[in-house]
């Protein structure tokens, strides 16, 4: 409406008018576009960039989480590299990751098994998935009972075979394996499900062609199925390592004091303890930042390696 009024009063050519209208349309669209873009950007600024900036600053201060912060420069980082418990908890955290390849291998086997037409496979798939949807806290408590040295289910079962089981969670040698076993059990269903989907996505024609060429089942698994599910393996490895580096709940519930001689304490467990029990929020933040950088670097390396090894079929 305004456009026609303008055109009669200013006497512009039709071309100019069109351009003008175009520009105005652009301007309105730009404004809308900005509004839409603003939503995620403001969200990013508020909920990601600001907290990161704040954390970086907090890691340079001595702060109890309540009162004023005192700037101390890199002191926290210097302390951190001399902190024996930081080193041990980092070691423990990586130790727990031994469970990742074991868990992946088991879940691939399970997926292969449950991909066959065996009776009751839907029931099995459901059963293996139940731990995934259960509360981790509840699972940790149940396993804590199971691992009890005197009355625990596991030692009772071992006793049937004449084996005297250790006091799993109180022994420096067994506490980490005990937690790994639990974590594998808990994560099995999720990895299995992804593998199952990937296996079913492998074109049947490939298997048929290979079978015609005389490939046996193992060769087909090795040369067709495994390469085809590789993206899933990669995804699972990356997400498992990121999640594994933040392992906390099961440690905190099953070994509230970090295990005998600090043998089960994970890095996040140590961070939480420093931050909330000993009120060293600045130092704890510095540790979190180091952990964040570590996870970033590891993930970056994984993507690099994966790019080199990846291939695609048309």
């Amino acid at each position: 409406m305004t456009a026609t009024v303008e055109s009669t009063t200013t006497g512009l050519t039709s071309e100019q008018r069109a351009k003008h209208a175009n520009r105005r349309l652009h301007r309105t669209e730009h404004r809308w576009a900005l509004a839409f873009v603003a939503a995620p950007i403001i969200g990013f600024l508020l909920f990601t960039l600001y907290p990161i900036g704040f954390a970086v600053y907090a890691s340079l201060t001595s702060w109890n989480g309540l009162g004023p912060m005192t700037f101390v420069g890199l002191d926290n980082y210097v302390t951190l590299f001399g902190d024996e418990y930081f080193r041990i908890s980092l070691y423990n955290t990586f130790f727990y990751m031994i469970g990742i390849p074991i868990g992946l291998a088991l879940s691939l086997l399970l997926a292969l098994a449950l991909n066959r037409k065996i009776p009751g496979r839907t029931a099995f798939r459901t059963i293996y998935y139940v731990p995934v949807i259960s509360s981790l806290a509840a699972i940790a408590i149940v396993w804590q009972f199971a691992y009890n040295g005197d009355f625990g289910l596991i030692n009772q079962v071992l006793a049937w075979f004449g084996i005297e089981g250790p006091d799993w969670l109180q022994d420096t040698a067994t506490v980490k394996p005990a937690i790994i076993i639990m974590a594998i059990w808990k994560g099995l269903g999720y990895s299995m499900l992804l593998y199952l989907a990937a296996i079913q996505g492998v074109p049947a024609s490939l298997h048929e062609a290979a079978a015609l060429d005389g490939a046996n089942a193992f060769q087909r698994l090795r040369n067709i199925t495994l390469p085809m599910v590789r993206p899933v393996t990669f995804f699972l490895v990356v997400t498992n390592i990121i999640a594994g580096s933040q392992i906390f709940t099961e440690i905190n519930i099953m070994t509230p004091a970090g295990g005998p001689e600090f043998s089960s304490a994970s890095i996040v467990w140590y961070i939480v303890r420093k931050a909330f029990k000993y009120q060293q929020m600045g130092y704890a933040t510095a540790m979190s930042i180091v952990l964040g950088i570590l996870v970033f670097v590891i993930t970056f390396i994984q993507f690099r390696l994966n790019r080199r090894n990846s291939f695609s079929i048309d």
Partner: protein
Amino acid sequence: MKRNRLIAGAVCAAVAGALTLTACSDGGDGGSDSGEKEITFMFRGGPDEKAAYEAAIKKYTEDTGVKVKVIVTDADQYATKLQAAVAGNNVPDVFYIEQATLQSYVSSGVLLDITEQVDASGIDLDNIWQYGVDSYRFDGELQGTPDGKLYGLPKDVGPFSFGYNKTMLEAAGIPLPDKDTPLTWDEFVDISKQLTVDNNGDGAADQWGTGLNVQWNLQSLVWSNGGDWTNEDRTEVTVDTPEFADALQKFADLTNVDKVTPSASDAATLDTYQRWMAGEIGFFPVGPWDVSVYNELDFEYDLIPWPTVGDGGTATWLGSLGIGVSATSKHPDDAVKLVTYLSGDADAQQTLVDANIQIPNLIDMAEAWAAEEGAEPANRQEFLDIAQDYGRAMPAAFTYGAEWYDELWTNIQPVIDGEQTAADYLAEVQPKMQNLLDESNANAEQAAAGN
């Protein structure tokens, strides 16, 4: 166009919503503009505490017209939640405080100085355990001194007493220990040896003299031997003294030399607790919070003073949890009043005592409770003696944080297992503990200065 506008409107609303979300986290007692006053009370505890406090709060609301919003958390989430509330500037008006974190909450300006309001409230502080009240006094340098400003009142005091299985001792024909004269360490070990027997004849002991947990029981041994964790002004860690080493060694020897406890690895778990309750253990610590469970057991038990290692006299620790008021409370007077109800109201105390989970805060009530006919355990007076006379604060109760203290336990297991001598270990751990204590004292000064 219209639809676009709608979408854009929705986007803007979402953005605005996100913005306000971060801005609306202030205000201590949300939305009480109707003229009705409401204060919040955050605590942790089980159903018994909840019931007791409900009664006290009801009475408080009747008396004052002030409503109370109660927030209960799990024991292990409490500290995190409270800290989040502080960070979010949304501190409950009234909340539990621990002895060990009192100083940081005071110097950070979170806790209100309630000295005057408590005086004005008419509550008789002389009728509450002095240790309990003094625990929440802080003069800016030392905590627990009688002249400091008051920052809270005790929720309870927790005397950690010692008990024996009366049924077991009688069956073994051992004269019952005297409730007024503590056993010497040799007597204690001697009786324990007589109690450690193989009843079912399978070659392994199935009844033991005792089974203690180093983290909760070592204090008594060390103190009765004249040792301590720190010097008086809490600046020097003194765990490397011969008295301390002797006490720790004797503790470890119970398992490794005297062999009067279940095997080493069991001592660090709950299992000796289970065995005590199954009637397999002769001597075991008893706290007031245990009484409701222990009274249901199949054997009789009673309390005695802790055995003494040296000539320092019988000793044990006396815990406490406190109730404080937020410095940012909009109704500080009402909040303090609530604290006096929770800590000192006779009905509320009676509910807690009836539930057998704590001793009364009120001394006159406690004395009547201890003198009750047919009380179980019979020697309830021992709890009171600890609260009144010989109970001591935990070593880290009045320092700025307990990290230095926890360090002792982290690597102690080899000593308990007899793989390392107490003296060696203590010499090794003392410098680490000293570092951490220095750090915590420095932090305390910094926090006090920053205020």
